[in-house]
């Protein structure tokens, strides 16, 4: 990242605007590569172009010259993508990528018409190579992030080569929109059924980060279990083995909630917790038939599986209720457990929530069935 207030590098401070324009062209063409900033060993060629376009210290004449050179270069790209590939220069792809990198990093407003025009032409072009098309789409993303642009990105979700850009753009436009989880699950399905290479796990993590919680994704995946159970299992399996921690946590929460569902229905009994569970279940079935609407439950387990399942059927959580689920009065037993509120997470009273947190139940292990 180049500091906004870094002064104009000494090496080019005395240049004329024309010479600046030539430098920009040389950089984008790949014919100039000396380090302008720090004489360090690996300055990316387009760094100086980015600096000239965005730095507060760039003289106006320099910035204008740089923008004009970038525009001229972009017009050359427009010509290049309409030519048959055999007529395109060997280093054309590298040149387009450098130009796209500049727009990706700076998004200069005066290049918006060219970038969006190029995008439309590129999407229709039959001659264009995959890397060039990829670079042009990437260059245009920051110029097309209004709600009115959503339709364009939704269309790209149908293309294997560009679907991840489409999804990320939609995520930036409105991360809470219901279409986000729907689109995410569609990408998971394309990965599963059409063997698309789309990085659905990372997109899932980005969605959780952008939405600020995993609740929407979790709900979408839980609903998927009922309508496409094979896909649901496949996704969960991949999430559980992911290197990304929040994905493993998401899968563990879903598995725990699912296990609780089965436990409440009497279809899932762990060997360790069988005796306690049967007793609790009898208790709940005879005295509290409405457990599914009223009760709380505690599942003791971790990402490797469920250890114990306990249900507090009183409908209210209290220290009394807690004694039902505490084992040997040892608060540490709650570590790695999940608390499930059948009526919804929001109806867990803050004091109960805090009680669990205080006793070592991890906050993100609270789950909603």
């Amino acid at each position: 990242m180049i500091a906004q207030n870094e002064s104009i590098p000494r090496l080019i401070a005395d240049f004329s605007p024309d010479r600046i324009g030539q430098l920009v062209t040389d950089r984008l063409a790949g014919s100039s590569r000396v380090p302008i900033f720090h004489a360090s060993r690996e300055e990316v060629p387009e760094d100086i172009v980015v600096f000239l376009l965005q730095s507060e210290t760039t003289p106006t004449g320099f910035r204008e010259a740089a923008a004009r050179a970038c525009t001229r270069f972009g017009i050359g790209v427009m010509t290049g993508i309409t030519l048959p590939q055999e007529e395109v220069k060997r280093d054309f792809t590298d040149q387009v990528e450098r130009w796209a990198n500049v727009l990706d990093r700076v998004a200069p407003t005066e290049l918006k018409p060219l970038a969006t025009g190029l995008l439309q032409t590129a999407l229709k072009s039959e001659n264009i190579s995959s890397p060039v098309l990829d670079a042009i789409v990437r260059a245009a993303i920051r110029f097309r992030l209004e709600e009115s642009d959503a339709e364009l990105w939704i269309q790209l979700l149908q293309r294997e080569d560009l679907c991840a850009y489409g999804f990320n753009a939609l995520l930036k436009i409105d991360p809470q929109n219901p279409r986000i989880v729907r689109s995410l699950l569609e990408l998971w399905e394309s990965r599963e059924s059409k063997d698309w290479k789309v990085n659905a796990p990372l997109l899932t993590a980005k969605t959780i980060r952008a939405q600020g919680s995993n609740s929407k994704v979790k709900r979408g995946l839980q609903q998927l279990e009922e309508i496409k159970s094979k896909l649901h299992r496949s996704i969960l399996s991949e999430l559980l083995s992911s290197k990304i921690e929040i994905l493993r946590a998401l899968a563990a929460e879903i598995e725990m909630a699912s296990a609780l569902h089965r436990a409440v229905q009497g279809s899932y009994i762990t060997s360790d917790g069988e005796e306690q569970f049967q007793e609790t279940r009898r208790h709940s079935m005879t005295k509290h038939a409405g457990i599914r609407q009223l009760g709380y439950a505690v599942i003791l387990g971790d990402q490797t599986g469920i250890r114990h399942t306990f249900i507090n059927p009183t409908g209210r959580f209290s220290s009394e209720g807690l004694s039902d689920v505490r084992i040997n009065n040892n608060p540490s037993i709650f570590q790695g457990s999940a608390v499930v509120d059948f009526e919804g997470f929001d109806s867990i009273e803050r004091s109960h929530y805090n009680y669990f947190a205080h006793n070592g139940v991890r906050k993100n292990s609270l789950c909603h069935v």
Partner: protein
Amino acid sequence: MNIPATCNDWADMMRSDPDAAQVLDNVKSDSCVAAAHEQTFFQRIEASGPPADAVKAWDAAKNAVSAAGGNDLYCSGKEVPDDRFLSLVRVIKAEDAFYVVDDAYRSGAGAGTTFHDLANCLFDTLNEFVAGYDGLIGGNIGKPDGLAWVTEDSPALDALRSNGSELAGRLGLPEQLQSVVDRGMYVRVAFQREHLPEQLHVPRVLDAVGHSPFRANPDCAADHGLTYSLPGTAGTGFPEAIHRSCKVARIELTCEKA
């Protein structure tokens, strides 16, 4: 190397800028470059014509060693012995992870990640981006310069992992140092020599014309170079070697908090 009279215009222009002048001094001080390479280098500079300014002069030198499709003057120093540099490490700016991962990983068919995304994200997001990269495909290590400068992993280097500023300073990486300070994180790129398809070489000035802080090692028999610490950093640099830019299998990418 002795600068021939036919390159006097080039040398004069290099002297007009302090960084370029330092490169020129490095060129003059390295006596370990093979005569044939030296001759080719100066012939290419002469062929580029009189430079208009220091940037053009410096570009001429850089283009002479990294001529498109050639790069034949790179890595002309001796090969690093087999028992050195078994574990290799590079430190890069956080957002430069964009350039290291394989195109397929970041593209619209993969993660759809842009440079802007990586330059503006928080640690967790960047960490997930690099953690999700399985390294089996391989990244283009050394892009865009045609060369990769690597350090030999060592306990001393490892001890600095949580002190990114000192680490970047000891490795002589001013840009990385600034980024570490600004963002409080950096990316560590590690791989094993056994997975490297290119030979490791002792750097010489022909490899370092884009890198004025480099000082030629006067010992032509030395089996490694040495990074130079930036001003303000404590301690010495680390052993250093180079290889040609290439794809390396099983890269370990980690996002580190500084």
